[in-house]
């Protein structure tokens, strides 16, 4: 029996296609076709031999078509194809990059999150360089049904081996219950947040949360949750979902599925989704977590994206998903405080500090009184601006008051 894994074709890059036949009776035979053979031929063959031995395969004929795949991809493809032959609990794990082991705060910025198809290694390699706050390795809608099994290995290996340069490491699992099985492949590895798609009830959040704690065991780590509301039932349950677990840090809305569910077309004006979006914003805020908007699917139209982000921000969302790296900079730019907001925030902070110094109980800016929540928001605006590089860290020094 011959099984295969991976992708091949003229347009494939940084991936490979493995085809494995076991039990040939002639030991291990590896046939490698690779555009990088002169430079990595030996290391690829070594890895394959090591893995076949690890899984106890002694008779096999392996064909490798390599398109410059990195070791994490080669290993994921080979493990997938081996496990189509043999049933085993064993996992072939490459070492974790030490810089991939970090935890993220509950209220970390989640302005831009870049979705990457979980079966496409090429996009993963450079995903961290675009400055997005989160990177979502997707096991759900962007992975074809017959690739879902293989994608689990690739996503697992990527979590261990790919440096995202500090972006929050996220995985969107499949809709429950099959998403629960995904968790086994993901949770033991460097992961910060799980997105639960098509979430309708708080029970689903609880279920995922419980499975995660079970897998984590006594490990003192937190994996955050971000349920995605994608249908009418979810919208009506939004508040319960938002507060279903202490690990909920944000709640997102998925408008493509939502509009299909309520039987309408998604329009640029977005009247049809106004109610649902407002519900999600309010439910999230009521539960003390971040409301996150849907993706914008036209990757060519940057102007329309800018308009979308402006509206999204005005509705109360604090971030959105990106489906192409090109969207990241714009989403960051428009969600983050603009010049006017920054300058206003600075004035508020200066006025507050001056009042404090002078021992005044009441803070005024011009003719307006300023309450403590406004000062807090101003400080948060400044913090965001500084983090995004829009304001120097020494902004107090080099600015006229």
């Amino acid at each position, binding site marked *: 029996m011959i099984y295969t894994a991976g992708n091949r074709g003229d347009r494939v*890059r*940084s991936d490979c296609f493995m085809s494995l036949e076991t039990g040939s009776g002639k030991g291990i035979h590896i046939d490698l076709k690779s*555009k*990088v*053979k*002169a*430079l*990595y*031929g*030996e*290391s690829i063959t070594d890895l394959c031999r090591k893995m076949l031995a690890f899984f106890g395969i002694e008779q096999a004929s392996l064909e490798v078509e390599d*398109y*410059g*795949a*990195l*070791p994490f991809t080669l290993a994921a493809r080979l493990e997938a194809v081996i496990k189509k032959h043999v049933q085993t609990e064993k996992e072939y794990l490459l070492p974790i990059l030490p810089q991939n082991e970090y935890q993220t705060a509950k209220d970390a910025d989640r302005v831009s999150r870049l979705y990457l198809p979980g079966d496409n290694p090429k996009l993963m*390699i*450079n995903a961290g*360089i*675009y400055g997005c706050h989160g990177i979502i390795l997707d096991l759900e809608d962007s992975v074809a049904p017959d690739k879902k099994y293989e994608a689990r290995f690739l996503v697992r290996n990527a979590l261990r081996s790919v*440096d995202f340069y500090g972006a929050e490491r996220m995985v969107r699992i499949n809709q429950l219950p099959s998403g629960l099985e995904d968790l086994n492949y993901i949770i033991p590895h460097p992961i910060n947040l799980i997105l639960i798609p098509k979430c309708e009830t708080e029970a689903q959040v609880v279920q995922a949360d419980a499975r995660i704690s079970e897998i984590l065991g006594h490990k003192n780590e937190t994996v955050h949750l971000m349920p995605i509301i994608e249908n009418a039932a979810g919208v009506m349950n939004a508040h319960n979902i938002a507060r279903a677990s202490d690990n909920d840090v944000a709640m997102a809305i998925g408008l493509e599925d939502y509009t299909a569910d309520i039987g309408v077309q998604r329009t640029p004006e977005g009247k049809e989704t106004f109610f649902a979006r407002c519900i999600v914003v309010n439910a999230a805020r009521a539960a003390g977590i971040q409301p996150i908007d849907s993706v914008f699917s036209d990757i060519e139209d940057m102007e329309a994206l800018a308009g979308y982000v402006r509206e999204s921000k005005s509705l109360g969302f604090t971030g959105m998903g990106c489906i*192409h*790296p*090109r969207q990241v900079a714009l989403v960051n730019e428009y969600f983050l405080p603009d010049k006017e907001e920054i300058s206003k925030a600075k004035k508020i902070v200066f006025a507050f500090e001056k009042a404090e110094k002078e021992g005044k109980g009441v803070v005024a800016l011009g003719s307006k009184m300023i309450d403590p929540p406004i000062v807090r928001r101003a400080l948060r605006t400044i913090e965001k601006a500084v983090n995004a*590089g829009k304001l120097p860290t020494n902004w107090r020094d080099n600015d006229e008051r």
Partner: protein
Amino acid sequence: MPANYRQTGGITMSANMLKNAAGRSVPDTVNGKPVVPYMGLDKYRPQGIHQSPRITTNIDYPADGNKRVASLKEALKCAGLRDGMTISTHHHFREGDLVANMVFDCASELGVKDLCWFPSASFPCHAYLLKYLDDGTISHIEGSMNGPLGRYCSEGKMRKTAVLRSHGGRYQAIQDGEVKIDIAVIGAGCADPFGNANGVYGPSASGLLGFALADSRYADKVIVVTDNLIPFPCIPWQIQGNYVDFTVQVDRVGIPEKIVSGTTEITRSPDRLMIAEMTARFCDVAGIISDGFSFQAGAGGTSLSVGNCFAEIMRKKGIKARFARGGSNKYLVNMLEEGLVEYILDGQTFDLDGVRSIRDNPRHVMTSPFTSYNFHSKGNFASMVDVVILGATEVDLNFNANVVTHSDGYLLHGLGGWQNCLFGKTVILPLPLFRDRIPVIKDEVTTLCGPGQLIDVIITERGIAINPLRTDLIKKVKGSGLPVKSLSQLKKEAESICGLPEKPVFTDKIVAAIKWVDGTVIDVVRQVVREGKE
């Protein structure tokens, strides 16, 4: 030709190997002719008199100006084609060129052998000529080695040693007599029976014909081939008929859609876009983008988007560039028409917008390797350009760069104007840190094409390395937030992602010599052992 030529290659056993000033081991003769090893930057100064063509008299040419000959084969016969000659063609038709292939079809039909093809560049369409390399019609190529031809050469199948020169180096080699062109065949989009020719009209319009200028002036015999013969005078006469011996009309000299393919678009790859944006930001921060500056960006997708980013910055600042060096295409033409660029000094046109512009706009000017790049001119434009954006297949820790071979050792590209452009005031190579797992930064480049002293900045998606010699640039970008790193830091970063590459395996046989702009040998390419180690 000695019977054992094929086994020993063009470098006969008598060639001595010497270490040149770049530390590369090079032979003292190539194809039996003595060569000078690279001596270092600005060290080699040949003496003597420029090569001249033989004296001709107009009484030997038809008084009515009609130099038409019935066919290309006839013209080659009239030009005295015989074994061992050097035949030149130009590359303005790019991937749509039919002329070079026709020339050697004729040579083969005439039973002529052992020719040297001396193109200004070759393209994958010239893989057609492999059969003539196989059967001995062509002994070797002195020019660029693209795709299949490079592969053929790298595997040691060419009978003599290839010689690669820059566009400027080609002019130099013709002028100082290193290469004597016996017959130049110049394809033109438009020509008259006298031999005046241009590239701005006709179905095979290619914009200009600058790469054929030296050939027209110095070749012993000159044949102009066109598919669009018009009555005298053909205006503008980019090629002057007074240099031309024979004119030929054929059905087609090129495939229009492949001449001006227009396929080069601004890159859509987010990684390349990011590198382009970073390059423009670097130039801005370094103070290079200022009113009246000049630039040259190549025609690759990344370079095009660098130009686009320059345009955005210029618009914001309300400034103009005094001139841009082409290759031109619609993006550069748009900048000219918008007034962001005052002049395009063009070497070749890549699309129909470029052709239209050079034809109709007096500010879009034709140049040649003589004006832009030539080592034996009294100065050239290359060193006047403020910033030059170039590519490379590899760089090493000393900023040396390679453009002709890949890391697996295969010869796959020509030098083009690359070496000549290194004389620009600031030279920037925007490069991905690795391509399909292959790191771009090496301890030592596989083939040395340009010395690191001339390469100022390497810009990758993961950081920017500035040549330590450019303390001015280092100072200017300090505190800008640009991710400045050392080349060894970047190299380590790439290797931690890709793994440490193995070394390709070569035989001792030299298959190609790489010339520096002054005609000295800067490096050689050796035969690869096929398929790595098996």
